[in-house]
Each structure stands twice: as structure tokens, then as C-alpha cells.
């Protein structure tokens, strides 16, 4: 369990928000916007779409918050609401709007790397991974998104997506294998 979840300050805030306390709902958005956007960013190909999707998650949260049981931890419930909302919205969208391919968008170079050549390589890899990630099945992407947006364990991902742990492990393995293969193919196809 994470330190943040041991105390679970969001539980009381969520209970107040569910009772109609506006400032409490605003506090929930403040507390969760980064995590929700991090999940959405790995489910879509560009930031604008990810932000729109994140906004939809909070509008949906507003609608369903009164179903939250304050006797239970808030974080797992919130992750389930987020994942369900994002997957439903993506499945409901026409394929044309689902694939907002933006391979030319400037990738963010790894600012921790002092070597510009390595930083550029890292940026190329990040761009390629983002591109190929968006081509994976949504169910695989959701597993990857939860693993890398919050660093969740296999058990926590399984709980958020209501999947058996072995399915989560398999999807994570296959998703990373597909991305690895895509990177390798790209590297070997590139002129030296």
C-alpha cells in the first residue's frame, strides 16, 4: 500500500463532495487531475485529446460520486471510475477521432540527460513508443497506462480494471514486447 493510501485524505473529501460540497469537489479535481491526465495521456496520442478525456472523467465523476462508499478507500474506486469512463468514451468514438496520430509533434527530450545526442535518441524513442502505444488494443493500453501513470502493482491494476492478475501480467508483457519489436523494426529500417 502506498503511504498516501494509508491515510486516504480523499475519502472524507469525496464524502463531502458527494453530499454537494462544491469546494470539496474542486479539491478532488485538484488532487486527481495529474493522475487522471497521466492515464489519459497514455490512452491517446496527443495532449489536447488527453485533456479533453480527463475533463470528461471529472464530469462523469461528478455524476457518479454519490455512489462512492466512504467506508472504502477512495483511490481504487476512483481508478475504476477513470478506467471505465476512458475505455467507454474511446470505444464510443469513431475510429477517425480515436486515432489522432501526431507523429510530428515535438517530443519532450529527457531533461535529465546532459548528453544532447542521447537526449535526442531518447526523444526519438519516446515519440516512437507513443506512436506505437496508440496502436495497441485499448485493453493492453489501459494496463500500460495504469502501470506507468501511477506505478501501480499488478494487483492494483487488476483491481482497477476488474481483471485477473494473470491477464494483467500477460497484457503488460505483450504490450511491452510489441513496443520493443516496433522500436527494433524502426531502428533497423532507419538508414545509418
Amino acid at each position, binding site marked *: 500500500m502506498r503511504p498516501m493510501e494509508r491515510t486516504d485524505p480523499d475519502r472524507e473529501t469525496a464524502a463531502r463532495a458527494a453530499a454537494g460540497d462544491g469546494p470539496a469537489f474542486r479539491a478532488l479535481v485538484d488532487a486527481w487531475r495529474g493522475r487522471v491526465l497521466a492515464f489519459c495521456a497514455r490512452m491517446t496520442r496527443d495532449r489536447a485529446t488527453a485533456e479533453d478525456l480527463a475533463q470528461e472523467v471529472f464530469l462523469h465523476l461528478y455524476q457518479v460520486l454519490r455512489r462512492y462508499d466512504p467506508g472504502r478507500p477512495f483511490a481504487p474506486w476512483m481508478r475504476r471510475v477513470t478506467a471505465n469512463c476512458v475505455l467507454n468514451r474511446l470505444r464510443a468514438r469513431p475510429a477517425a477521432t480515436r486515432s489522432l496520430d501526431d507523429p510530428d509533434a515535438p517530443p519532450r527530450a529527457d531533461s535529465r540527460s546532459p548528453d544532447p545526442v542521447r537526449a535526442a535518441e531518447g526523444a526519438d524513442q519516446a515519440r516512437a513508443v507513443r506512436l506505437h502505444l496508440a496502436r495497441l488494443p485499448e485493453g493492453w493500453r489501459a494496463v500500460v497506462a495504469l502501470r506507468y501513470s501511477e506505478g501501480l502493482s499488478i494487483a492494483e491494476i487488476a483491481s482497477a480494471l476488474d481483471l485477473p492478475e494473470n491477464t494483467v501480467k500477460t497484457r503488460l508483457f505483450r504490450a511491452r514486447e510489441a513496443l520493443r519489436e516496433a*522500436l527494433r523494426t524502426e531502428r533497423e529500417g532507419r538508414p545509418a
Partner: protein
Amino acid sequence: MRPLSCADARALVDARLDGRLPSGDDAALRTHLEACAPCAAVAADARRVHSALLALHPGDPGPEFTERVIAALDRGPAPGEAAIPAPRGRFAAAVAGAAATTALAAAAVALLPVEEAAASVASRIPLLASPVPALPEPATRLLAGIGTAVPVWAAAAAGAAALLGAFLAGRSARP
């Protein structure tokens, strides 16, 4: 130490990314990767994918994002915008409320004499609030006959509506 197959080694490379590598397998994996160039290349690519996935973090969208959410809630769905789906819980509650109202109204109507019931309904609807003209004798007899059947169909309708409301309310318990 048991030598690893390439398939085992690649599964362990993946597990290691999540900190799931059993401590006893660490040495076996290192030995395998030192001797097997293809698996060593896979391990290097796996680390690159792992780093790239971590680097996709978009950061905090900032307080302006919160303001956008609050503004969207305040204004409701704009024309052409996807409507916020009606909460099932509230819909179910509305149906349950309607069912209860129907049951009460049906019971009240069934207990009232027909002419009083007609006046009662009319008095609640402005356009019908003018005096109810007296019914001719045969019509009064006909409605009196129907009046005896009212409790049966009213109870059946109210029961069906209440069951529908309870079903929808039960479904709304999930997030």
C-alpha cells in the same frame, strides 16, 4: 544453478522491469544475458521501452484545468457537445418516485366516487379546472362500472412501475 532458456530469460527480463524478479533468478538471468547476445539485445530494448513509457508523463495540467472542469459543470453540455450521461441513480430514483406517485394516485382515484375523482384531477390541471359538466345518466353508470375495476389495473400498473424503479435503482449501485 539451472540454466535458463531464452523464453524464460525474456519473461524474467519483463518481470524485472516491474520489480517482480525472484531474487534467486537474478544471478541466472545475468549469466544468461552475458552469454546470449539476442537476449541481451532484448533486455536493452526492454529498458528503452520502459524508460520511454515513463517519460510520457504529461505533468500536472495546473489549476486552470480545474477551472475548466468547474466551468463545464456550471454551464452543462454545450450545443453539439456530448451530453453528460444522465446518472442512472437519479433516473432510477425518478422512476421510483413516479411509481410511488402513480400508486398513491391510483389508490386515491380508486377510493373516490367517479365524479369526485374527475373533479379532483381536473382541479389540478389549470386547463381543466373549469366546472366539470354533469355526465349524462348512461355515462355515469358506465364509469361507475369501470370504477370497480380501477383498483385492479391501478395496482398492477403501480406494481410494475415500482418493480422497474427497484431494478434500475439496484443497477445504479455500480460505478
